[in-house]
């Protein structure tokens, strides 16, 4: 089904020794996921139990304060809360009661653990149970940790979805469950493609509202749309569901491989698959070809950030003609990453974890044409003469499936085009 692509490399990166790094990590913590999760889950409120730092992070990561009262907030721990723990639980009850009284539209509340709440071992699981009993059936209260000591950036979404899995109802229906909070436009496209192949019903985790949630069980088959959803993956398996492993749906090739894994599972005839995918594939190919002109023959270096690095390196090397020099990921989950690693030709350093100063040394030595990194590093590297793509945009923009494949390539090519356009030297 991936006939239009070069054959998989004889030696992919699946068995490449991984450079494991310890040291300063230049990444966000899992709380950041709240920024997009609260937009997707429209009846949910995310209450971080943490410090002023947590509140400041959310505000800084959100960039602008579009909402007067967003559906997230921080219960900031104070000196008095740290003195005695029983007190902190009572305080939390008070804060949540006030909050729910003020926001009757809220149907599910997530108590989100942070570094300080984890360190003082504030038991949010018990708190969530207690509150669920108090506010049921109107409000469901769940907890997860988005702390930096346990989660890296996108792992916050993973922890959130994994916390929902145990409370989903049980079903024996043979159903497809697609996992990952994607922008509505992208989700609609995927539903359209799968629906046209005759796959019905299509369930999604998370749903936009709690009431449309569905059951899972031994006959559920699920496909991840995001490579960072590994805890959710394992939690679904524990509920008896079966995963479909495939390359992630980025670019024409990734999307086709991902869809075809589902089509095979549900016995979609080859001609139906061709008929449904042919035109969008052609569009994707054309768009990627245009957008990747500036990328062809260039090299790329990935700092670890969103966990999308390996699938994106596969897309850039196989569809956009780039060479990967180093692909760093915060962590590598073998079962989930293997299909993409197999397609990534050997050559790049595959790194897990980070020691940012040493990685910067390697990056400068490698002198890549394009460096994909977080916001803390981008401007300093630009000032050194490197061209960068800030990674957070890859998480905040619609980039999955056929119709976004050209946009995805465009996100990488724009910094290169921009550098070639500017005819003015910096004064310093």
């Amino acid at each position, binding site marked *: 089904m991936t006939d239009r692509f070069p054959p998989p490399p004889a030696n992919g990166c699946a068995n490449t020794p991984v450079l494991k790094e310890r*040291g*300063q*990590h*230049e*990444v*966000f*913590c*899992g*709380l950041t996921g709240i920024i997009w999760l609260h937009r997707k889950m429209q009846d949910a409120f995310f209450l971080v*139990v943490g*410090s*002023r*730092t947590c*509140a*400041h*992070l959310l*505000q*800084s*990561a959100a960039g*602008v*304060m*579009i909402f*007067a*009262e*967003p559906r997230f*907030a*921080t*219960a*900031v*721990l*104070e*000196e008095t*809360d*740290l003195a005695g723990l029983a007190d902190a639980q009572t*305080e*939390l009850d008070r*804060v949540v009661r*006030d*909050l729910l009284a003020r926001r009757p539209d809220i149907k599910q509340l997530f108590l989100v653990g942070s*570094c*300080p709440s*984890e*360190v*003082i071992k504030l038991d949010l699981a018990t708190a969530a149970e207690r509150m669920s009993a108090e506010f049921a059936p109107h409000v469901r209260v769940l907890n997860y940790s988005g*702390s*930096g*000591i*346990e989660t*890296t950036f996108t792992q916050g979404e993973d922890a959130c979805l994994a916390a929902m899995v145990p409370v989903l109802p049980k079903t024996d229906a043979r159903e497809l469950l697609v996992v990952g909070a994607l922008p509505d436009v992208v989700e609609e496209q995927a539903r359209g493609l799968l629906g046209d192949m005759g796959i019905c019903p299509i369930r999604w985790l998370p749903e936009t509202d709690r009431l449309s949630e569905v059951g899972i069980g031994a006959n559920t088959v699920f496909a991840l749309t995001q490579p960072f959803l590994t805890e959710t993956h394992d939690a679904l398996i524990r509920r008896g569901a079966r995963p479909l492993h495939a390359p992630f749906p980025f670019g024409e090739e990734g999307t086709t491989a991902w869809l075809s894994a589902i089509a095979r599972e549900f016995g979609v005839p080859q001609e139906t698959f061709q008929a449904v995918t042919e035109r969008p594939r052609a569009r994707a190919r054309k768009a990627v070809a245009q957008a990747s002109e500036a990328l062809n023959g260039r090299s790329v270096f990935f700092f670890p950030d969103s966990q999308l690095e390996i699938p994106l390196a596969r897309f850039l090397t196989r569809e956009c003609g780039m060479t990967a020099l180093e692909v760093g990921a915060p962590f590598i989950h073998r079962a989930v990453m293997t299909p993409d690693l197999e397609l990534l030709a050997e050559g790049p350093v595959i790194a897990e974890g980070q020691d940012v*100063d040493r990685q910067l040394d390697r990056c400068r030595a490698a002198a890549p044409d394009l460096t994909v990194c*977080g*916001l*803390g*590093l*981008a*401007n*300093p590297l*630009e*000032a050194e003469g490197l061209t960068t793509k800030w990674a957070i945009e890859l998480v905040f923009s619609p980039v999955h499936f056929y119709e976004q494949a050209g946009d995805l390539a465009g996100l990488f090519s724009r910094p290169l085009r921009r550098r070639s356009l500017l005819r003015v030297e910096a004064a*310093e």
Partner: protein
Amino acid sequence: MKLTVWTYEGPPHVGAMRVATAMKGLHYVLHAPQGDTYADLLFTMIERRNHRPPVTYTTFQARDLGSDTAYLFKDACQAAYDRFKPQAMIVGASCTAELIQDDPAGLSETMGLPVPVIPLELPSYQRKENYGADETFYRIVRALAKPMARTTHVTANLIGPTALGFRHRDDITEVTALLADMGIGVNVVAPYGASPENIARMGAAHFNVLMYPETAEAAARWMEKELDQPFTKTVPIGVGATRDFVAEVAQITGLAPALDEDRLRLPWYSASVDSTYLTGKRVFLFGDGTHVAAAARIARDEMGFEVVGLGCYNREQARLIRTVAKDFGVPALITDDYLEVERAIEDAAPEMILGTQMERHIGKRLGIPCAVISAPVHVQDFPARYSPQMGIEGANVIFDTWVHPLVMGLEEHLLTMFREDFEFHDEAGASHHGGKAKVRVAVADVEGPAPQTPRDISGPKKQGAETTIEVVWLPAAERELKKIPFFVRGKARRNTESFATERGVSEISVDTLYEAKAHYAR
């Protein structure tokens, strides 16, 4: 436990970062978990700094907590010294590391690093960003500055400017010029641009210019006591304050006051007839204490505005702001609760907000123009052009900045003249408000400029007048009210209602409306 939606200040270690990032040759080792590195982007993105902040984060993880996080700190400290070779280091803990009590101060002391290592104790669960900056700068000065011979010529240190400060970069240039006019040189600017070696030379100055009490008052007081250096109490923001500042410097140094006002335009621009429309504009002020106190004086004495409310988010300046508020006859709002600020603004229904980036968002929602006068900052607060707040040029910049969001004099008259014109109606809005105008007008159609949702904004005032009379607008009066331009309609409605209430009138007719208008005419 305090429920917080948006915050005006970060945690205290971010204040320490503002000091470290402003300096050269100093490195900060911060005992902190993964994720606290988000603070780097404040400097690299908002301020567009072309270097990473000089901060090493130890990045401990959950699995480290059971074993030993102290060695992580020592390793990070040694690695940072070896790589960056700083002249001095500061060490401390972020909020989480404070809880695991590894004692960065004690650990670093045992390491025998060949440079001064200055420990910071910043209580994350009690204090905030400004305190963190103030305390950090104080600790650095205290550790490195020594009494020494004064410079032959009269010189001053400029203290307080930090990274991520509101217009600090340009204020330094302006204050340096003010002093140069009096023949006073600058010994050291700190922390902005200073190295630890520069800090060690601070004792050579004859006095200190305390530019921002928020970030350097503790250091100023210490230097006054230990280095015998007086410091200036006037912050030269605005024409009057700049003149007072020059007088204060003259008094401290014994030099003749001198101020070159050739380029000063605010007084004439304010006096020129186009500015008549600024008269009595109702403004609400909120920000850090220093900038709000300065802005209040400018608003009343130099722009002819009416200050209808003011406050600050940093409790350290509460006393100052209470004094100013008393002078202006308005209540002082001392809070860092964003929603409380929004409610206060909604109640005061000002015609303009002078606030922070946070109030700019409040203004957008309520349809009230807003000019930014204070941190917390946004990428917009680091313009490419020279744009100080202090001194002569600062006053010019402030005039332009404050006038810009308002409907201009002639425009206002045209809007009044053609108010029911088929294409110049309320919904068309003022041209330079762009896309925002639509929202504002849709709201204004219902209730006047202030509230976002239909709601009687005069409610609290009626209770205040100790009366139970429900004031009702008769249909004809309501229609007449609609003919009043949208940007003054809220005020007209409110004035008419209080006029009616005071006289025990329960139904507002067209006559009541115009009687009230005559009563409030100015």
